[in-house]
């Protein structure tokens, strides 16, 4: 009995000590140390430097999409008479990019253009790079805000939602029933775009458009195909299917192209030119949209050289010129939006290969 009491007392004392010790938890104020924010003033009239060494570090090498992105970067670096370099891991894991950043620091590059696999894992290395005077341009997928100078965003949620609504309105002839074929019910991007799409439909110019259903193909080819079939069985008067996912748009187009609805029901949304080419050629699809990955790399290169030349520092409201893309203004948090998505149709689809 005594022993048991003693044991109880000891364990209670232990629990108390541990509880009193506390420790560092998530809720403790975790002041993130800011990066080496440049205090230098931008001089918009500074001369554009030649021979700027910019290295592109995509999520992984030999990925068709990344290859087109950095191809655009190379084009721009050639125009700017800079030195383009491409490095990167073979796998898109979080930490694999870090040792490449370290190598680039050693090689004393002027600018790093990075599509971050993990916004935080690359942070300490990027800030080390900035500490040595290098500039960092994130593109496609952002690094944490305090470890890069600017971020090239391919498209805004609003831009995509508005573009989808515009195409749906045109293709449906301004009135009638339309349906959406999305990815999964909880896909963050798709849901955000659909939300904007619905807000657009509330506007007077789309008053006669009726969104009858949002179907989900789970980004699975077969399921998307069946969902497209199901939509037309349930809504025979459908004017257009809008698929804000590359899997959905291709499956819907494949179904329509092989059915009696070809030419009667429009398919549009977000797709890549290579997967949609045959459906544009055979008349199933009139137009669809996506941002042009080559332009992302192109803009990243121009932003990088503008940073290296001191024309911009990444502060909101600064402006710079980006060759054929025209002039850009830096938005909040150093974000630079590429612009509205590119619309592909029979007249221009053959200029793109991705």
């Amino acid at each position, binding site marked *: 009995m005594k022993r048991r009491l003693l044991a109880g007392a000891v364990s209670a004392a232990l629990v108390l000590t541990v509880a009193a*010790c*506390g*420790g*560092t*938890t*998530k*809720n*403790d104020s*975790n*002041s*993130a*140390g800011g990066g080496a924010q440049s205090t230098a003033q931008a001089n918009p009239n500074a001369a554009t430097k030649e021979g700027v060494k910019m290295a592109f570090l995509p999520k992984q*090498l030999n990925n068709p999409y990344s290859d087109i992105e950095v191809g655009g970067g190379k084009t721009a670096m050639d125009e700017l008479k800079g030195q383009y*370099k491409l*490095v990167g*891991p*073979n*796998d898109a*894991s*979080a*930490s694999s990019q*870090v*040792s*490449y950043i*370290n*190598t680039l*620091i*050693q*090689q*004393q590059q002027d600018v790093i253009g990075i599509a971050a696999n*993990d*916004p*935080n*894992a690359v*942070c*300490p290395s990027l800030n080390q790079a900035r500490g040595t005077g290098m500039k960092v341009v994130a593109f496609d997928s952002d690094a*944490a805000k305090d470890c890069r100078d600017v971020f090239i965003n391919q498209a805004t949620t609003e831009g995509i939602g508005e573009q989808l609504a515009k195409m749906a309105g045109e293709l449906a002839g301004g009135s009638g029933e339309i349906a959406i074929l999305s990815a999964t019910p909880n896909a963050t991007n798709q849901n955000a775009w659909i939300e904007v799409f619905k807000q657009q439909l509330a506007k007077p110019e789309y008053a006669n458009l009726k969104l009858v259903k949002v179907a989900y193909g789970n980004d699975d080819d077969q399921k998307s195909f069946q969902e497209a079939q199901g939509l037309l069985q349930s809504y025979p008067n459908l004017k257009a299917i809008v698929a804000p996912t590359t899997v959905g748009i291709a499956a819907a187009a494949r179904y329509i192209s092989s059915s009696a609805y070809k030419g009667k029901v429009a398919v549009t949304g977000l797709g890549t030119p290579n997967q949609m080419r045959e459906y544009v050629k055979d008349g199933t699809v009139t137009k669809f949209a996506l941002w042009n990955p080559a332009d992302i790399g192109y803009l990243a290169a121009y932003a990088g050289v503008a940073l290296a030349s001191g024309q911009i520092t990444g502060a909101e409201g600064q402006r710079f010129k980006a060759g054929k893309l025209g002039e850009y203004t830096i938005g909040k948090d150093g974000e630079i939006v590429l612009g509205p998505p590119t619309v592909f149709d029979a007249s221009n689809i053959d200029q793109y290969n991705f």
Partner: protein
Amino acid sequence: MSDTRTRPAWLSRLASWDAAVIVITVLVLVIASGAVENFGSSRNFTFLLLDLLPIALIALPMTFVIVTGEIDLSVASTLGLTSAVMGDLWNRGLPIETIIPLCLVLGAVLGALNGFFVTVLKLPSLAVTIGTLALYRGLAFVVLGDSAVADFPRDYTSWVTGTIGGGAIPNLLIPLVVLALVFGLVLHATPIGRSVFAAGASEQAARFAGIRVARLKFWLYVVSGLVAGLAGVLWTLRYSSARADNGLGMELAVVAAVLLGGVSIFGGKGTLPGVLAGVVLLATLQNALRLQDVSNEALNVVTGVLLIISVLLPNIVIRFRAALRRRATT
């Protein structure tokens, strides 16, 4: 394996592959410092050490496991699962001082599971650890999905990435050196080490000599898991990012370094200094060739060729010697 038993042990050691690897590693370091621009800088030295650290850590117990004739391919997945659990517990508001010991225990438990399958159920370790490689990685994704946890306390993350007195030597080198000394002494200067070699040379003979081979192997797997768990904790803090895919594919880098360091995949043979040289050699080549803008594919080719040579050369030497002896006797 024919061994020349006439010469003292240290002499045949000198002519062995692991000694050769140490010499080659030193040569490569010297040549790279001279020939590769920016290689010799103190910052690059820090990068190099930080990059090879997790591989070196995990290679220590892996050396023991492979010397006993077994293998543990689940180490990188153990690292990933530990990292994922660490992130999950942190999200749940546990203090980091509690999470770290829990993660080390988790690593040991994962290792014990391997040990149980291999030593109690007598399953082949290659099959078992390929299985747990997939299992542990899968669990890591169950725990954390494809999200990442990043807001670990700065004191910890900055210590892990920091250097001693702001110099070139990473703080993390201290635990690595301590562990390397402990593992090296145990393997080469204690009865445990002798049992490990005996078990790898001939399990039956070792059993007849009274060595509890199964128990020994079980504890080696526990230590292997524990160290992989530690590597997972350090990895997470170094990159301030707990993710399910951390350390993906690293088990092969570890096994490659161990074999390159002169450990026989059939067991019974190898030295820890050789293994550490193997780790440094692979990391140095990678670092130096990257500075020279050599592509990944070429890097893989170099690593592959090196591995083949490390397996081939000792065999060629042995055959050559045997042929010489045959000629001397006829």
